[in-house]
């Protein structure tokens, strides 16, 4: 069985703001689940999910490489064979570290009303596959994420389902940093009032 190819990382090349992003791609099939590199990557994703659930965004920023590219394309419904399923030149997120840091700084103010009171968040991370790259200091990691976001006590919770392709880079002092993330959300029309959260 051949693992389905996943080339979402190449989308960064087509993004208007992804010129600075690392171009490193996966090499070969997914690593065995017993591989030390897979265990580290999976561990990293789970630890990250806890930070995002708790909205500990300053610590989350520390997990991002300085040249991070954080992309969430807009998905569109197109005919089979159209050759594309994202909106050309448009995204929900198309971020570098500066713009992400502004978003985090805003949550730190006392006036980011959309998250005051805060949402109750749960990032469910699953279907993790790790791939080696030609560079021993980089791994490509695919995962599925289901975000449950509940606000207040009147409205139904919002659910966002997405696939992610991450590029992890070995950090100098040990551990891993996120160098690139592409979030392929499964909705063409988002069913949440905004994306004042991260995936």
């Amino acid at each position, binding site marked *: 069985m051949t693992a389905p190819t996943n080339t979402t990382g190449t989308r960064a090349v087509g993004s208007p*703001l992804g010129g600075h992003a690392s171009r490193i791609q996966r090499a070969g099939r997914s690593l065995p689940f017993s591989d030390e590199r897979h265990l580290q990557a999976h561990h990293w994703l789970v630890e990250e999910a806890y930070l995002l659930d708790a909205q500990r965004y300053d610590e989350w920023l520390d997990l991002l490489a300085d040249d991070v590219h954080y992309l969430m394309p807009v998905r569109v419904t*197109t005919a089979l064979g159209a050759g594309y399923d994202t909106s050309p030149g448009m995204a929900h997120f*198309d971020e570098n570290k500066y713009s992400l840091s*502004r978003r985090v700084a805003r949550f730190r103010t006392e006036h980011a009303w959309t998250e005051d009171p805060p949402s109750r968040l749960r990032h469910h991370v699953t279907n993790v596959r790790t791939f080696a790259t030609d560079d021993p200091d980089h791994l490509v990691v695919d995962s599925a994420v289901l975000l449950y976001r509940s606000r207040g006590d009147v409205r139904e919770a919002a659910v966002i389902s997405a696939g992610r392709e991450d590029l992890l880079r070995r950090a100098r002092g040990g551990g891993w940093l996120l160098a690139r993330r592409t979030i392929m959300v499964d909705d*063409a029309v*988002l069913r949440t009032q*905004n994306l004042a959260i991260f995936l």
Partner: protein
Amino acid sequence: MTDLDLVLGDVRRGMIPAHIYNDEEIFRLERERLFGRAWVFVGHTSEIPQPGDYVVRRVLEDSFIVARGEDGEVRALFNMCLHRGMQVCRAEMGNASHFRCPYHGWSYRNDGRLVGLPFHKDAYGGEAGFRRKGQTLLPAPALDTYNGLIFVSLDPDAPPLRDYLGDFAFYLDYYTRQSESGIELRGPQRWRVKANWKIGAENFAGDMYHTPQTHTSVVEIGLFREPKAEKRKDGCTYWAGNGGGTTYKLPPGSLEERLRYVGYPDVMIEKMKRQWSQAQLDVIGRDGFMVSAASVFPNLSLVHNWPRVEDSEDVLPFISIRTWQPVGPDETEVLSWFAVDAEAPEEFKALSYKAYLMCFGSTGMFEQDDVENWVSLTSTAAGSMARRLLLNSRMGLLEDGTTVVPPLPADRFAGPGEAFVGYGEHNQRHLLARWADHLERPVEKLAQVEVGGAAAQNATKAVSA
């Protein structure tokens, strides 16, 4: 039961029965009497530049294929097969010479003409039983464009779009005609909010008053250069024709200095000077006002702002266009596009796009706090207590109906319509007064099209764009 006359009377004097923001009965009337005849924005010609390009857009439940035919004409075709009513196009964008119904295989050219009808002779006896010739997907009753913005109306007797827009076209040019080539659109981002559609339209039309409170955080993080959010009250609101908006007051300087202040490069400024009328230039250069948010009745909004996008003093302007597409009385689908002058330098386009993402749209930092308010208003408006509450929307008016400040005289505001400096709810009242005008007028009986009958020689309305 709601006494409609009473509701509309209250709205007209600026007292808003809170339940109109979440009321099934009101929504039914809006569907029939307002969206059944107003001009509704569905897209821009730059989204479908090539023959065969199409996007699918809705006016409430009605799905239209907005397509450019092989002849280059733009049409809006009702997305319903003439046979059994299936959607003939289930993608939201693409390029196609034909649309084939998946049910029985009827097929239509991208100008709407029915060209394929399987077993026409065997099943119908050919033309004698079903006249295929001249049959087309139902065209939108009216379609027209302004600066490439495509509008449709479900009313075949709708006034010409240019007349409908009236003097608001003067302001629309700031957003959509900065050069001879006009804008190109990207997107839309689409998402649903549990809020009534009118709230966003009112907010963009004239609510400068919410900025210092709702948007404090974006000033605090340095996204927005103006040192204090209170700066907003030095701007003016204007209403002209079928739309209105808000402005910021710019620091003293020449036209060029003021356009540079909001981040436009000289190469774009030179084009604006050639493109805009003297009066359009005077609003900026002489009077010192720069357009920001605006709405066209009923549910099209625009925004122009100039945040910092990197860690520097420089700001970058962006333009965004959006519709508040009603889904129900308590739910709205937002379609939000990024717009940029087609002739702008590529680097400007990229940074302007970044500015848009940081400020508005599904992830925009301005937007996030707005929607939180509107969702909460909508859910509270559903109950019986809301029926007892008349919200005061009379800001800018004294009890006797005179205005708190006089309108700007012509020598201080070169634009058409009526403009007031400072906070006021003049534009929200204008918008809701038009809403009331539509809701009180019953619709005439609709003309029906008999498929395959002799009377069905409906011509497809199209425009050159």
